């Protein structure tokens, strides 16, 4: 395979893609990423297959990745001949026949569950999908193909200028590519935000026969799924990025280190790597050049700390994933003591776009110091949850309220950076999202988890949750991290249980400083952040727990109790039937009695009263 034959293949792919847009047969696209599948995409697809078979319709089903607004899953698009793709949201299998009947029998666009169309021009008065409030403020660069193409079909990727960025590279000296990346201002998207080009330069300048490139897909940060979505929706973009990086730094062997918890992403990657080999962009003398490169997949085995560079290397070498002192940095001495570059999935996925469209184009997005776009997983108590991509420098307020649609209950905080980040209160809503401003506020950018919490979330409980997480994931090498986090969890548990004292808050702060200073890697170095920022911005909530023995958000189990409001209870006995301890009693049609000494606060009665009972809100939880 040479560059010429690749170009020919791309042309063929482009005409195949164009044919798909004007397909004479109806097309049905199903959002089948992990989130879509969790929401029931498989059942929807089955319903579609049943309908097509029953009515002898020659339609084609195409599975696509995640397009972003996960709260609308399962998503199903229908493309009739001569029409754009029309998207339907929250589709249940029982909706499928109705939607299909409208298209195939009444010959008109179905109106129920309609989300919008994916065409470029106005169509039939239907709103554009990408004009929805959640999508309009976004800039999709890394995610440009997610949810649009079939991730298993290489031709779809090729048709959308796939491997064009890498092709450009082959005609350029590595110094020029490095310069392009430098001018683009790209910084590591894994969290630390180190300039990508500088790391690369260090590695390239090391005299060595062998250099390695590792794609860090060990997305362990709970509450973040950007990398999973990108790999599931557009695996070739990440792999093309690996080719570009490997060519620039002169690596001949690459690894993708990916979490075993992402089986679909692993499957997609494996398939894509086979396709790359067939295309001739992997192996010896790629496209007739003297560049040779191969990629192997290494599955993680469930250790958060392996997201740290040196721990990740230890894990690939078959050892316990424990970080070591740096320097030497992996760029100097990494895997098997050879110069190694570890880049995040998103960093790599961005590269083909920069090479294709130019450094200045990319640098046109974002701020002076944080250029380009960043993907975030917008989750928690926000109305519109999902995967988003926005230019850096956008204000938190725009993300939470304009894109996310705000919260149901009053907004309380937004947590950025996962277990290494912090909880930012309302006063930080006008903070621009970039590396510097988030650090100034005491949090970090992190890999891109944005967890929004409202007045129903207890900040002390959240801090306990994060510390509990880092304590479990601490590798145990440094005493301050191993023992210190354990003590912090104990103190936070004490406060949540209503046994806390004011002195405990100071102890927490003191321990935090010790852990930060005494830990080798960033797991320990940032572990106290969630507690520290919570103590700083939400001290009153801690005080309520300690002094008043109250949990204002009504979350901490020891501080809450359940009560039946006699005036509201209709005596429908639904709660009696679900109570596991027999704490609720009472004859039918009369207000029930809740025995607090028997109540284990399992929430069953509360839920059934809200969703299934006649009264709806006769049981309350109070603190």
């Amino acid at each position, binding site marked *: 395979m040479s560059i010429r034959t690749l170009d020919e293949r791309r042309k063929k792919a482009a005409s195949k893609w164009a044919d798909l847009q004007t397909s004479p047969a109806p097309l049905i696209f199903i959002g089948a990423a*992990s*989130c879509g*599948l*969790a*929401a*029931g995409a498989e059942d929807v697809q089955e319903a579609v297959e049943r309908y097509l078979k029953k009515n002898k319709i020659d339609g084609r089903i195409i599975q696509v990745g995640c397009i972003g607004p*996960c*709260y609308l*899953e399962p998503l199903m698009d229908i493309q009739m001949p001569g029409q754009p793709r029309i998207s339907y949201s929250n589709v249940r299998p029982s909706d499928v026949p109705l939607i299909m009947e409208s298209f195939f029998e009444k010959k008109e666009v179905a109106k129920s569950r309609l989300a919008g169309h994916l065409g470029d021009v106005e169509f039939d008065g239907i709103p554009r999908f990408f004009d929805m409030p959640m999508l309009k403020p976004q800039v999709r660069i890394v995610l440009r193909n997610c949810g649009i193409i079939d991730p298993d079909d290489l031709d779809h990727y090729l048709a959308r200028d796939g491997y064009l960025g890498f092709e450009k590279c082959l005609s350029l000296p590595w110094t020029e590519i490095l310069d392009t990346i430098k001018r683009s201002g790209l910084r590591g998207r894994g969290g630390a935000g180190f300039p990508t080009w500088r790391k690369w330069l260090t590695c390239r300048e090391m005299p060595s026969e062998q250099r390695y490139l590792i794609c860090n897909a060990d*997305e*362990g940060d*709970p*509450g*973040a*799924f950007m990398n*999973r979505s990108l790999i599931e929706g557009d695996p070739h973009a990440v792999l093309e990025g690996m080719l570009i990086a490997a060519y620039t730094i002169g690596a001949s062997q690459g690894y993708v280190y990916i979490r*075993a*918890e*992402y*089986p679909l992403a692993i499957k997609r990657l494996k398939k894509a790597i086979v396709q790359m080999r067939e295309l001739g962009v992997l192996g010896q003398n790629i496209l007739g050049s003297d560049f040779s490169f191969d990629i192997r997949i*290494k*599955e*993680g*085995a*469930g*250790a*958060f700390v392996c997201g740290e560079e040196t721990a990740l290397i230890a*894990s*690939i*070498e*078959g*050892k*316990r*994933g*424990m970080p070591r002192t740096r320097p030497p940095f992996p760029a100097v001495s990494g895997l098997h003591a050879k110069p190694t570059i570890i880049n995040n999935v998103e960093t790599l996925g961005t590269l083909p776009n920069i090479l294709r469209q130019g450094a200045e184009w990319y640098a046109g997005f974002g701020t002076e110091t944080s250029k380009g776009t960043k993907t975030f*997983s*917008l*989750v*928690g*108590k926000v109305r519109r*949850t*999902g*995967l988003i991509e926005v230019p850096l420098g956008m204000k938190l307020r725009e993300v939470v309220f304009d894109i996310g649609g705000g919260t149901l209950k009053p907004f309380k905080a937004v*947590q950025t950076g996962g277990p290494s980040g912090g909880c930012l209160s309302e006063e930080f809503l006008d903070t621009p999202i970039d590396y510097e401003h988030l650090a100034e506020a005491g949090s970090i950018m992190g890999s891109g*988890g944005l*967890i929004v*919490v409202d007045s129903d*979330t207890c900040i002390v409980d*959240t801090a306990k*949750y*994060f510390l509990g997480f880092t304590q479990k994931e601490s*590798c145990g090498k440094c005493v301050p991290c191993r023992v210190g986090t354990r003590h912090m969890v104990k103190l936070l548990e004490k406060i949540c249980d209503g046994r806390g004292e004011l002195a405990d808050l100071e102890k927490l702060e003191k321990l935090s400083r010790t852990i930060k200073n005494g830990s080798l890697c960033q797991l320990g170095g940032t572990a106290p952040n969630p507690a520290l920022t919570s103590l700083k911005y939400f001290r009153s909530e801690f005080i309520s727990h300690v002094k008043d023995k109250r949990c204002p958000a009504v979350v901490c189990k020891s501080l809450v109790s359940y009560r039946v409001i006699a005036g509201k209870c209709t005596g429908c006995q639904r709660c009696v039937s*679900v109570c*596991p301890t027999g704490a609720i009693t009472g004859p039918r049609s009369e207000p029930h009695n809740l025995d607090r000494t028997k109540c284990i606060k*399992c*929430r*069953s009665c509360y*839920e*059934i009263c809200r*969703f299934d009972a006649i009264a709806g809100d006769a049981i309350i939880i109070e603190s």
Partner: protein
Amino acid sequence: MNTRDSISDSSLSEVRREFKGERGDLIPVLQRVQDIFGYLRPETIRSVSRWLKISENEIFGVATFYAQFRFHPPGRHHLRVCLGTACHVRGGEQIFMTAEQRLGVGPGETTADGQYDLDRVACLGCCALAPVVAFDAKIHSQMSVLKIQRILDEHKNA
């Protein structure tokens, strides 16, 4: 070599063909072995030790470091409750406690009849549909205390 050793050795021969037998293969080898046997038996660890020339102690050290490896036979069905941040703030902990109560086992344990394994998992990556649980390979989204009870009851009665 006793008989149990030779049994595991013969099953290992399949695994041996897939790997070069380098030090770096240790974790993938253990993952493959666990795929086949369901867990890591002491005899298998011994065989892997002889093959890769890494001491049993060290293999044990590596295996216990990672959450994925188990040292007891797994139950027939696996319930994993996600406790990622998004699931936590949407009530994942309560769902986990309900599962504990229903199954009568703690995290990492198997029910006495060998039917169910219960595990906490750090994040399944379906945060936008939190809280979620994974029952065997299927992920259930937007869980509630009542929904998890229903899933378990329906499965038990099926």
